[in-house]
């Protein structure tokens, strides 16, 4: 018994209509905005200019790329935020009731020895709904 994804048929269509209405409003605004043709970038490597802008080396950026501000502080802030997110994810995911090394609790979809009730019920649940 595989658990391949199936098309959901019990969805709420009112939400779909709401999302479609939002898309219609946005599309109307965008089409009637009267935007000019894009200005585009001048000569020079865009990737290199992104790197220069990220490390505050603005004198190396060509004039056609229009970068007038450095992002070194933002770069370092994002680095700290990523580090904090990694620590937070590890803190959330750690099991504190075992104390020892963290073991992988996956069962691979098969009923195994010592499986909890939740995995048992999940393993047998899709059999009823299978057409």
């Amino acid at each position, binding site marked *: 018994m595989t658990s391949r994804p199936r098309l959901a048929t019990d969805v709420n269509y009112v939400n*779909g209509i709401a*999302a479609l209405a*939002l898309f219609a409003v*946005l599309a109307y605004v*965008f*089409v009637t905005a009267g935007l000019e043709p894009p*200005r585009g*970038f001048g000569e020079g490597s865009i990737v290199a200019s992104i790197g220069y802008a990220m490390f505050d080396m603005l004198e190396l950026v060509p004039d056609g790329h*229009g970068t007038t501000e450095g992002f070194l502080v933002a770069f370092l802030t994002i680095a700290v*935020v990523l580090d904090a997110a990694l620590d937070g994810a590890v803190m959330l995911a750690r099991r504190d009731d075992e104390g020892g090394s963290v073991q992988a609790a996956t069962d691979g979809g098969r009923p195994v020895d010592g499986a909890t009730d939740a995995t048992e019920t999940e393993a047998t649940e899709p059999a009823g709904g299978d057409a």
Partner: protein
Amino acid sequence: MAIVTEYYLLLSAAVFCIGLYGILTRESALLFLMSVELMLNAANINFVAFAFYWGNLTGQVFSLFTMALAAAEVAVGIGIILVLYRNFDGIDVTEAATMRW
């Protein structure tokens, strides 16, 4: 011959609305995370499109930072989903309706 900016904006609006529909409809926390990612990436498309529109690279650099923030958000989100699965034996977001249990 460059693609006009309206097409980028329409793509971005479509991706955003797909993400919004996913958030409004789904009950699995993992699909919630995927929908939030769709909405964030719609904003990224706008950043890159308007960077090209104005000939200014700041939008592209900023979209890189948005991607890094999205990665951090997913890391914390998956940690929360792990705790949710441990406490509720499932990742249905409608079951976890209270802050304390």
